[in-house]
């Protein structure tokens, strides 16, 4: 976006021993972020700090905004102008961004919001872990809308999933959340960054006609339900509004238009859930106890499952890489096997994801919770598995 000489490598290809927050920042760079607008907040600050130095050096723009209301609006504006855009925050800032996340969904402005979760509510424990924004990510803004949320369990995944989040945001024109947590953000591990030409990049669909060549309908869709995106300033006639709108982008304040529009916003994700969703499975084949965990907690869960297996307990782990969409279908398949006896859901909140599991089964769903500041240890989980 800038004419400034590019003195640094955008993609830091190679093997690194890297902090989770820094890996997220490098994922943003490798994923082609043009613009970061943010307001530093613990424990996400190292993301902003690294991008403040790195992004301008590779031709991108970094703006430190006055607050999180400004941060989210600035990335939406940048997105409307054609930039791959990202911001990073933590719980208090995430709350402030909620209204405009609905605007992103309604205007179909692709953007990525990184929330490094800390112990909440309110200011809580600023430097300590939480996983209690996970339902807020799904339902935080008013209304029904499609979105996706990923939860990395390692610095490597902070890199990989930031790239993936940017791709999903652009492909479906939705807000996408990277729901990190303080443990993963402040952990340093090996991170492998591929060669620049091997970073998978998916870009937003663009109009198939030149500006002025024909009448442009900014919200006309084909079968996939995702409108091609004309950017502000290119010469297309573009009108965007948070009001219910028609294919022209003009307000069309009728129940029928609203119903069709909101259904389409939700269906973009619902119909493509299998492409967006990611999870991995550990020792699930004959599992009678299925642990469902995400983010840092999944690391304790995996160790507990290993130890419980050594003692003969038939248990396994379904690790949610995408928390939203939630892998309902996969859980239903596990239930159909008839071997599962119970679920165990450890999380650093008081049972937010447990409710999602309970919705799908009559089997017992045992919870292991910590309100924040510390995550369940392998021993905490093992005790329940044995």
């Amino acid at each position, binding site marked *: 976006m800038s004419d400034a000489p590019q003195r640094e490598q955008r993609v830091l290809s190679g093997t690194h*021993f890297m902090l989770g927050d820094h890996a997220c920042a490098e994922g943003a760079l490798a994923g082609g972020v043009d613009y970061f607008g943010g307001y530093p907040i613990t*424990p996400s600050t190292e993301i902003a700090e690294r991008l403040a130095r790195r992004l301008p050096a590779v031709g991108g723009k970094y703006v430190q905004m006055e607050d999180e209301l400004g941060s989210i609006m600035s990335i939406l504006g940048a997105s409307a102008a054609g930039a791959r855009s990202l911001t990073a925050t933590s719980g208090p800032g995430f709350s402030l961004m909620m209204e405009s996340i609905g605007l992103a969904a309604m205007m179909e402005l692709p953007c990525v919001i990184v929330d490094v979760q800390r112990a909440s509510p309110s200011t809580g424990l600023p*430097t300590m872990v939480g996983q209690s924004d996970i339902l807020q990510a799904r339902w935080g803004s008013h209304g029904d809308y499609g979105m996706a949320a990923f939860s990395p369990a390692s610095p490597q995944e902070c890199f990989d999933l930031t790239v993936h989040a940017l791709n999903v945001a652009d492909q479906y024109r939705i807000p996408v959340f990277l729901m990190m947590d303080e*443990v993963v953000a*402040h952990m*340093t591990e090996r991170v492998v960054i591929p060669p620049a030409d091997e970073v998978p990049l998916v870009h937003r669909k663009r109009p198939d006609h030149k500006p002025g060549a024909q009448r442009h309908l900014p919200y006309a869709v084909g079968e996939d339900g995702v409108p091609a995106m004309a950017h502000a300033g290119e010469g297309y006639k573009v009108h965007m509004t948070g009001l219910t709108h028609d294919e022209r982008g003009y307000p069309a304040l009728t129940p029928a238009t609203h119903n069709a529009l909101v259904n389409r916003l939700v269906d973009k994700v619902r119909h493509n859930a299998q492409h967006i969703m990611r999870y991995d499975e550990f020792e699930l084949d004959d599992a009678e106890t299925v642990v469902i965990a995400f983010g840092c907690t999944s690391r*304790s869960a995996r*160790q507990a499952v*290993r130890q419980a297996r050594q003692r003969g307990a038939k248990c396994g782990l379904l690790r949610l890489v995408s928390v939203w969409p939630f892998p309902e279908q996969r859980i239903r398949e596990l239930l159909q096997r008839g071997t599962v006896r119970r679920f165990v859901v450890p999380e650093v909140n008081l049972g937010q994801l447990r409710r999602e599991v309970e919705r799908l089964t009559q089997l017992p769903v045992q919870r292991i919770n910590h309100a924040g500041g510390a995550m369940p240890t*392998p021993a905490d989980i093992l005790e329940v598995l044995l």
Partner: protein
Amino acid sequence: MPAARSSGPVQIRFGGYGGQGIVLAGTLLGKAASLYDGKEAVFTQAYGPEARGGASRADVIIADEPIDYPYVTQPDVLVALFQEAYTLFGGQLKPGGTLIVEEDLVRLGEPAPPASLLPATRMAEELGNRIVTNVIVLGFLVGRTGVVSREAAEQALKTTVKPAALELNMRAFEAGFARALAAGAAPA
């Protein structure tokens, strides 16, 4: 690349005060293991209020298999670089674990547990700069425990330390490493 000694997970804790460079020492150790010795490693550090003033910590876990739980629970190796760090973390050391202390800054008390005594700060001053105290400690730890190979640790230094400071840091590492070998008969 030469492999370091193979074993189960090893938990290493550095305890020190701000300025002693324990974060860099821990980072170098983890980097050596995971990038140059073909092992798994995770590094964490005290963060927030607990990292401001007083005893701070930098933790590394090194293992042959992927590491699940990232935090040190009971160190196999404890490096205490001043009294408060020893007071705070000394009791956590695994029975039979390796204790390394800054001998001018830590009094072990009576009865003194088996420990490797290292005048790291004095040695750094003799090399011309107190700033390399941490790398002397790293050299000693590597020589004493073999938790990473010497080659891997040197490679980590070369890819981390600024070129202008590399020569001094390599000498510091060598000084610590040589001291560990010379003290080969030190308590186990």
